[in-house]
């Protein structure tokens, strides 16, 4: 609950999330490569890259979240 622990928690979430996403991407890549792409490596790289990218994006969003401004378009 302490504010100094906030970052730490964020980092934890980030890492967990990236691990999950990476793994999921990797797995999906494998699956796809096995099923659709004749065991090529690029879907795995693609999948893991996608997973990593998603994780990175999530992580960044999480870190940016205090500074994000949500505005409403008033007509």
């Amino acid at each position: 609950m302490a504010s100094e622990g906030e970052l730490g928690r964020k980092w934890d979430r980030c890492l967990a999330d990236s691990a999950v996403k990476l793994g999921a991407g990797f797995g999906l890549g494998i699956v796809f490569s096995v099923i659709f792409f004749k065991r090529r490596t690029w879907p795995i790289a693609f999948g893991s890259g996608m997973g990593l990218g998603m994780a990175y994006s999530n992580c960044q969003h999480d870190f940016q979240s205090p500074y994000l401004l949500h505005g409403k378009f008033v007509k």
Partner: protein
Amino acid sequence: MLRACHRAGVAAAAQSSRCRRAPLRPSRLCRGYASSSGESGVSVGKIIGAGVLVVGGGVGGTVLYASYDAQFRESVEKAVPYSDKLFELALGPAPYTVPMPKKPTQQGPLKISSVAEVMKESRMPASKSQMSKTEAVAPSEEKEGKEHEGFRAIKERSPEEVAARLAQQDKEEQEKVSALAATLEAALSSTTRTTLQAITAQESAVQAVNAHSQILKEAMDSSEDAGEKKPSQWRTLEEALKDRRRAVDEAADALLKAKEELEKTKGVIENAKKSQLAGAKPHIVAAEENLHHLIVDLDNVVKKVQAAQTEAKIVAQYHELVATAREEFQRELDSITPDVKPGWKGLTGQLSTDDLNSLIAHAHRRIDQLNKELAEQRVREQQHIETALEKQKLEDKKAFEAAVAKALERHKSEIELEQEKKVEEVREVMESEMRTQLRRQAAAHTDHLRDVLKIQEQELKVEFEQNLSEKLSEQEMEFRRLTQEQLDNFTMDINTAYARLKGIEQAVESHAEAEEEARKAHQLWLSVEALKYCMKTASGDSPTEPLESAVKAIKASCSNNAFTDTLTAALPQESLTRGVYSEEALRARFYTVQKLAKRVAMIDETRNSLYQYFLSYLQSLLVFHPQQLKPPTELSPDDLDTFKLLSYASYCIEHGDLELAAKFVNQLRGESRRVAHDWLNEARMTLETKQIVDILTAYASAVGIGTTQVQ
């Protein structure tokens, strides 16, 4: 959208203007119709106007004429209902017509003042003879007299006296009247008696005279009859004559008596008239009438008697003449034939021829004489008749004059009686009228007197009341003054006593207060010490105990002290419920915070991507700042660097100045600030609490010093 509104407004305006223009057309059309059918509409109006004019003229004329003629007004009022209201409105009330029925109503209110009238009359006792009327008023007047007592002046006699006097006068008058009436009655009765007696006597006299004359006639007629009847006849004649004489004498006596009585009665009536008693008037009038009648009857009867007497006289004269003639004849016969006896019828055989011849000669001579006398008489017949007629005329005239005089007298007396009666009536009417007028006057006088007396009474009452109120107010003021004096004295004493008491009380109270204050101060001190001790209970990283109980104790110890109340209220809620961290805990925590803050020194709103995070971390690794920097007295803008600030803060922390450290940490911006946010809050709370506790301590010490009595 505004344009849309404006457009809508314009449309509405156009619509309204269109609507306004619309009704003008129908009115123009109507006017057109009106102008086209002008004549019929105007003529209707004309007819109506004419009708109104006629009606108004009729009404106005009626009203005008009614103002001139009251009878017309009355008749119209009778005929037309509610016209009287209209007339009243226009002309005022109807003119006053003398209403007869008003008199009885006026009699009513006058009845009360008849008392005054009566009493007024009593003041002039002798003058008016309305006393007879007051007989009825006297009993009622006694009651009213008592009512009006208060109103009468002092000069008048009291009503009871007046009433008594009136009653007495009434009685006297009544007595007089009754006496008079009695005398009149007595006189009248005696007169009537005597008159009747006289009348009967006269009647009997007349009868006697007639009888006597009748008998005489018979006697004379039957003088040639046999002599036996003669003496009886003469005797009856003598008796009749005696009777007649007696009757006539009696009649004359009775007449005298009656005349005396009549004279007496007349005298009595005159006296009664002179006495002027109203009640006796009718009696007098009746008596006069009776008297008159009696006189008339008496005169008639006397006349009868006189007629009878004259007749009797004639008969007597005739009888005398016859008797003298017979005597002469007898004498002659005697002279001629002396020896012939009077009863010569039986002497026819005794008479000689000479006697017979002398008798016949005498008879012849007598016859000649008589013839001569007769001739003479016939010659002087006319003269005799004339003289007789003249005599008769004279006598007749005298008799006529006498009769006329008598009739005149009678008539005069009758007329006088009538006049007296009329005078009486008129007098009565006049008297009654005068009575009413007097009554009215008396009533007016009473009313005036009543009003004046009322006003006087009121004035006097006012004056007396004023006097009384003045005296009362004086007395009251006197009384008030005395009471006020007493009260003032008493108040003064009370005040002095009270003041002393107050002084004593105040001294005692102030003592008690001082003691109380001292106690309170002690209490406060103790509670503040408890709070301070509570502050020290922080151990390691855990905060202190919740300060609530200590604060409650403080509040209880000095509940009505605004200062402490404010202070205790100013304590942050967290400190009460959760407690605060100690300085050491915060100091320890600061280091972690510092480290973290250094790591995210570059992150703020603009730079907050993950790459920036990496860079910032790299920066923190590469930047070497002294761990602690002494903060300058004034901060310059380039002192606001994160690292510097953190160095200053750590220096302050190391030197125990949490406040300054918190101030420096407060200057952090961006992510560093967010990281240090909680720490800053805790530091702030701790600082606040510490500050309040210090103040409370100071206050408690001050209070304690203040209440300590220097011995």
